């Protein structure tokens, strides 16, 4: 974990939840290391600090094993965004999200943003099988998957058990469960993703969409935390940035 070396305080927290073997660690690994490798079952949890512009975002990867479910609410405490992950080839993994994991998110921030992500789509849809090095635009990510899956030459190796409509229905139930305002919450079309950690399909789009959405919350948090403690490091940085201004 070389990136965690810089012990900067994270500005905001994101948590990846989901049943075991849906590919949470692989998703994070694909996004941070741009590659796919076989991962071992995560023990407890791990986190990664992502430098996004001037902000530090900590992304927590949790363990999917039931044994560790109890820790989930602690990881979620103070989270600004939660990625609920399921496996498109496994209907049970979607059911688990609602039955086990949703209640763990009670400790997250009240304005927490949710994303429902179906991973391993490369196994069921041929369009996700191409190794994507370049980013897929976020507009395409949401709706395009379900209707267009009939069009391309279908070579599914495994039957797709979860369709995107099901994920969107779950998302809408989450909004209701959280008693969030349906008008202000992001739409299901925008927040339901189908990804492949193996090929990288839609992965960047997922994380970057979330980063964009949590940005107001970061700013709000920083404004609130006009803390009584003076951060010397920060001040120096600011001063360094300002210097050229006053000189010119």
């Amino acid at each position, binding site marked *: *974990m*070389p990136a*965690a*070396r810089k*012990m900067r305080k994270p500005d905001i927290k994101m948590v990846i939840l989901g049943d075991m073997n849906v590919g949470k660690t692989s998703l994070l690994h694909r996004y941070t290391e741009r590659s796919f490798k076989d991962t071992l079952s995560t*023990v*407890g*949890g*791990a*986190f990664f600090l992502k430098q996004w512009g001037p902000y530090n975002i900590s992304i*927590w990867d949790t*363990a999917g*094993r039931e*044994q*560790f479910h*109890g*820790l989930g*609410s*602690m*990881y979620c*405490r*103070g989270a600004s965004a939660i990625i609920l992950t399921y496996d498109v080839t496994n209907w049970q993994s979607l059911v688990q999200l609602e039955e086990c994991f949703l209640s763990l998110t009670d*400790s997250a921030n009240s304005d927490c943003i949710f994303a429902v992500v179906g991973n391993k789509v490369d196994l069921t849809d041929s369009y996700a099988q191409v190794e994507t090095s370049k980013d897929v635009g976020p507009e395409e990510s949401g709706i395009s998957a379900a209707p267009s899956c009939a069009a391309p030459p279908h070579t599914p190796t495994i039957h797709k058990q979860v369709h995107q409509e099901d994920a969107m229905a779950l998302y809408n139930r989450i909004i209701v469960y959280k008693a969030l305002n349906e008008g202000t919450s992001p739409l299901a079309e925008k927040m339901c993703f189908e990804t492949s950690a193996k090929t990288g399909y839609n992965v960047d789009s997922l994380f970057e969409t979330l980063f964009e959405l949590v940005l107001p919350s970061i700013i709000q948090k920083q404004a609130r935390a006009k803390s009584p403690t003076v951060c010397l490091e920060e001040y120096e940085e600011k001063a360094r940035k300002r210097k050229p201004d006053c000189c010119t």
Partner: protein
Amino acid sequence: MSVKAFELVSAVEREQLMGEKVRITIECIECCGQHLYVGTNDCFIYHFLLEERTTTKGRLAYSSQKLLQKYLGLKKPVAELKAASALERLIVLCDATIALVDMVTLEPVPSGGAKLKGVTAFCINENPVTADPFCAEMAVVSARRRAVQICTVHEDRVQMLKEVATPEQPCTLSVDGYFLCLALPTQYMILNYSTGASQDLFPYDSEERKPIVKRIGREEFLLAAPGGLGMFASAEGISQRAPVSWSESVIGAAVCFPYVVALDEGFVTVHSMLDQQLKQTLSFREGHILQDFEGKVVLASTKAVYVLVPLPLEQQIQDLLAGHRVEEALTLTEGAQRNIPKDKFQILHKRILQQAGFIQFGQLQFSEAKEHFRKGQLDVRELISLYPLLLPASSSFTRCHPPLHEFADLNHLAQGDQEKVQRCKRFLISYLREVRSSESANGFREDVDTALLKLYAEIGHESLLDLLASDNACLLADSAPWLEKHNRYFALGLLYHYNGQDSSALQMWVRVVNGDLQDSTRADLFEYVVDFLSFCSNLDLVWKYADWALQKDQKIGVQIFTKRPISKETTGQLNPDEVIKYLEKHHQALVLYLEHLVLERRLQKEKYHTHLAVLYADRVLGLLSRPSATVEQLSSAREKLQRLLRESSLYRVQLLLGKLQESEVLLTERATLHGKLEEHDKALHILVHQLKNSTAAEDYCTWASEDHDPAHRQKLFHQLLSVYLDPDVPGGAQTMEAVDLLNRHADVFDAVQVLELLPEAWSLTLLRPFLCGALRANIHARRTSQVALGLARAENLQLHHDRLKYRGGPVFVSEKRGCQLCHNTFREPDCVCLPGGTPIHTHCAAQRLQDSPTKRRLDHGHTSNHT
């Protein structure tokens, strides 16, 4: 994966405690400075003095001396011991009761205040909220009560401050400030005993596994979690570090930054808090207790006590580096920053960064290596010294000791792989360039620049010349043989020049131009040398090599003189006379040089102009006498001559006239020369009658009158007209030419005079353009002058008006008006004006002047004003 972070050292051996008594076991320990207290299951407290010493092998060892042992008089085990060193009290939990004993004598201290009975666990607040240094804060859990009691311990009493209710009976606890971290039978929770606010952490089955709650720092706790995890939790109930993975059977945990040490049935495991990785495993059977006391990790089996001695950080880091685990080494170094004094840390950190850089360099990971070298402020010579022969012989550099890397030199590193060597060299080039452009090369620029020069020379890099042409500190003595070895003679010349040895530079270049040495850097080296000489301030050198250059190519060689910059300074300037004298034997160069003096620099010296004109004339005459000369050669030679003759007025006309007199061909030139002598009739005669070129004649008139007034011009044209009309020449008057002349230049002629001259017989139609033109010109001249006259008058009037305006109004004098001085009226218009325009009699003014002789001088200015 493993690092040796700790070493297990025996502190108290079995014999010192219970000897051969099998059933007696250690129940609890407390360590306070050098004092070690051990509580046993047979109600004894042992007091040892623990002395640290270093063995001859440099290892840390402990020797313990039993000071005292005390039986507490109960048949129960001593469950817990905590020292309150400021009070010199030991807090003892035995038989579910808390008692105080003296730290030195181990005698019970009669304590007043609250009696604490039925206690199952307690803990001391290491981050106390009260300001009193002579009291310890304690949180106590009692059996049968769903509550935690907050007490203060004083020298002679225990005082209960508060009781906070808990949802269930706590099993164990820890406290920091106002935050209690509790292990309840089914879960962990945080409870703020000041506000009562609580925060559930996560579920945990205490029946199944013994819970662990360990304060590890300000508002942060370490908890045993399901699945053998060590979870970190802050007082807000947030996990700020990823968990560490212990075994399911973990018994105890301690923190010794940056490590978390855990004890299970067979092993002691060491995890890093920085990256959560397992770093070390020590086999330890029958482990019973693991606790840290002020940074000292103490481990006990049922029979003996050990200390886990952390190995010096530096050694750990060096071990990691030796295993090429760069990232881990840096993580450890940076993680340990807060435990090391700042200045020491900086030195250590720099060194580790440098070592890390060299490891990555050895793996050819150049970008990472560069970054670490830069951050570690590496003395760049360390890197240069890896490359054989790059550092100058004179360099005082010696490699740092202990060495930063394991390589003898580049060949050792590359193991004979030339591709690797080349890649390393390319890296060094890019690195040295960056070093040069930053400030970090200060103090050893010579070494850096010389090394860079050598690298460039070796691979034939184009930047070699840029380096030498710009500001550099390359050492001549060291670089010259290297450049010669690689046939970079041109570059060597540049280096000589940079070091002020122009003669050596020229010598080198001349040998290359002559083909004695081979260096194809510059195809135009000869031109370069000429250019160099033209700027060279050492005149001896210029003279020395001028001959060589001129012999090689006069046209280019002469640029030594012609391209020489002209400055006001007299030093380093060449005297043109000397140059001319020198160039006598190089005819072509001489002409070019004179052209430079006369035509470009426009020197106004008769000598040069005449010399050039004579050379031109000689050339033309030479060509004329040679039948093989082409028309083009001749016309271009004449063109040059003609232009000089026309445009210069400094050459000796008579001399040239004499030279050209014989030639029957050079009529134009002769006419021009006559024109220079103001002998216009001769000139016109040649042009009209000998050359028979009326256009040339007209051009002559225009040229010859160029710098004169219109009258002179008119005179010349009249002269030409009369030449045309002259009937006394063979062939008679040239009527057609005369008519053409008149018609073309109607405005130049005085029409009246012309009409008188012209023969009566000429028809009007013939002269129509002339007459029209002349008439038009005259009328135009008249009207123009009328307009000018009108304008001049208007201007005059305007000035008149202005003058009156500035003078002021009229002075009124009438018969009724009195003089200011005598008050008589004026009889005649003559008056004198006082300043301000008051009129007085002239005689009054005269009278006044006479009356006041003193005033006269003072008023002199005023009186002289009168008009």
